[in-house]
């Protein structure tokens, strides 16, 4: 708590001493391309923002009623916290000029910038974003909703047992440090981008990075009470509201049109049409594949797997939505839909308890999507005669993020564990975190089976 109050304090101070900048940017004659691009970027950013509602509903729907308030609270606060963290620190570390490993300027969004000027005309310190002709605040907002997504991925994997304020602290550090540093390597002009690593809309940057944090967090926390019997038997803990989970999956799906479609940061007709179509086809293919995979492997078509399959397809196409063909996207989605089913089963077997499948969806398919660029990119992909070079670069990027993420998350989670503890008491977990952490119930008028 002290640590947090301290951050808050700094914020408030920062705010009070900061001069008024916003008005500085003068009014120009209407540049119609800039208008169209900005409309596109802001609307797609709004769609990405909406994914927060999708995560909140998917995750709370797939957990138990007694923890619903807690999960919802986490999914709401995580974006609030990331907004402040990414504004204060993250955006600069990620996109400001600096070295191949870190941006080092323009904190609190106060760096020099003459956007929407582009290319040579751009004069400012966020040069890694000088290719898009939208105002700085539009760039920031679009990047912010991505940072929020990376942070919120973690929430589901650590659900039903993590302390509320520990998660709050982690969210802050995720948005301020872990996400932006690695983001800098890939999207901020850092060493991986110089190497030629391709990750169009963030299969690695957003989803794998979020997924690694989820994996480390879930492993350190250990499984929920009662999930694994002493005899090693797995006791499923069914989600309490599959209607909410389904609403959430649809919201994520539409959010993804913004996620991938907006990542051009320009309203270029041909690319955005292709990207949105690819996104849709991979999702659809993922859903169909997961249905059949769960039908064949498990006997019945599991709705939660169908939803996970769609999300897996979406994560899988994210890195290559601009480079894949439509049939290629369908194949990427089909593989993702099968992968996610077996990945969920796999992590359950090795006793990493991930209530909502976040690791299988975001990490496993984030890796798959990044890898798939090396296969399916219609210019440099192996299957299209591009040779193995891109594939090797993709693997390098995957490994780099794997190593850094594991370490960084281990350190950060352990510090938080030391400072504030990670897991609620057994009693609280049994009674439900809603009463323990928040003193309230999600469904007080309903008779529940506990």
């Amino acid at each position, binding site marked *: 708590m002290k640590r947090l109050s301290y951050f808050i304090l700094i914020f408030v101070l920062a705010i009070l001493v900061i001069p008024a900048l916003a008005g500085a940017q003068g009014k120009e004659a209407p540049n119609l391309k800039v208008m169209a691009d900005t409309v596109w970027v802001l609307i797609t950013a709004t769609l990405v923002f909406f994914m927060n509602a999708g995560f909140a509903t998917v995750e709370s729907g797939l957990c138990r009623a007694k923890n619903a308030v807690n999960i919802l609270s986490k999914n709401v606060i995580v974006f609030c916290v990331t907004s402040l963290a990414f504004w204060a620190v993250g955006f600069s570390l990620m996109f400001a000029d600096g070295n191949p490993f870190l941006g080092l300027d323009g904190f609190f969004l106060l760096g020099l910038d003459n956007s929407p000027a582009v290319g040579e005309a751009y004069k400012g310190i966020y040069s890694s974003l000088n290719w898009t002709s939208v105002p700085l605040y539009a760039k920031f907002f679009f990047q912010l909703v991505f940072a929020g997504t990376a942070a919120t991925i973690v929430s589901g994997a650590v659900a039903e047992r993590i302390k509320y304020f520990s998660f709050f602290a982690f969210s802050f550090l995720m948005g301020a440090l872990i996400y932006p540093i690695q983001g800098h390597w890939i999207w901020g002009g850092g060493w991986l981008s110089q190497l030629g690593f391709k990750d169009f809309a963030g299969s690695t940057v957003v989803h794998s990075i979020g997924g690694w944090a989820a994996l480390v967090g879930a492993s350190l926390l250990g499984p929920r009470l009662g999930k694994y019997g002493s005899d090693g038997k*797995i*006791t*499923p*803990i*069914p989600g309490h509201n599959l209607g909410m989970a389904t609403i959430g999956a649809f919201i994520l799906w539409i959010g993804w049109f913004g996620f991938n479609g907006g990542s051009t940061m320009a309203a270029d007709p041909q690319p955005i049409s292709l990207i949105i179509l690819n996104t849709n086809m991979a999702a659809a293919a993922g859903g169909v594949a997961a249905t059949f995979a*769960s039908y064949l*492997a*498990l*006997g*019945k078509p*599991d709705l*939660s*797997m169908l939803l996970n399959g769609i999300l897996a397809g979406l994560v899988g196409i994210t890195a290559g939505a601009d480079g894949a063909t439509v049939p290629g996207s369908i194949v990427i989605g089909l593989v993702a839909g099968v992968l996610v*089913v077996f990945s*969920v*089963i796999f992590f*359950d077997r090795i006793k990493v308890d991930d209530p909502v*499948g976040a690791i299988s969806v975001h990490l496993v398919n984030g890796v798959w999507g990044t890898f798939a660029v090396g296969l399916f990119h219609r210019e440099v992909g192996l299957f299209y005669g591009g040779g193995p070079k891109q594939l090797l670069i993709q693997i390098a990027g995957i490994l780099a993020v794997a190593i850094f993420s594991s370490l960084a998350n281990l350190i950060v989670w352990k510090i938080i564990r030391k400072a504030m503890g990670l897991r609620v008491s057994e009693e609280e977990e049994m009674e439900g975190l809603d009463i323990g952490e928040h003193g309230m119930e999600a469904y007080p008028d309903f008779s529940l089976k506990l």
Partner: protein
Amino acid sequence: MKKIEAIIKPFKLDEVKNALTKIGIQGMTVSEVRGFGRQKGHTETYRGTEYSIDFLPKSKIELIVIDELVPQVIETIERAAKTGKIGDGKIFLSPVDEVIRIRTGERGKEAI
């Protein structure tokens, strides 16, 4: 006076209620319960792991009747609730010492 408790299949509730009404029963109390018995539950699968649901939804009817009515009520419930398949449920009969109608303070037979 006796208390008759019947654990029945939920979809038979309306039929039983109607049958009881027909023989003149004017009051009963029903609750949702979960039954464990010879009728095995079903298997559900959730995210790749099968598990068995041992408890099945049942409805419990409780009604207090005067001693004379007991055989008729039991027979009526039996007839209306029976499907002949396992899990049809049970009827339990037990003693009751006194009944009071809260509204009027009436006791005994008058209160039923």
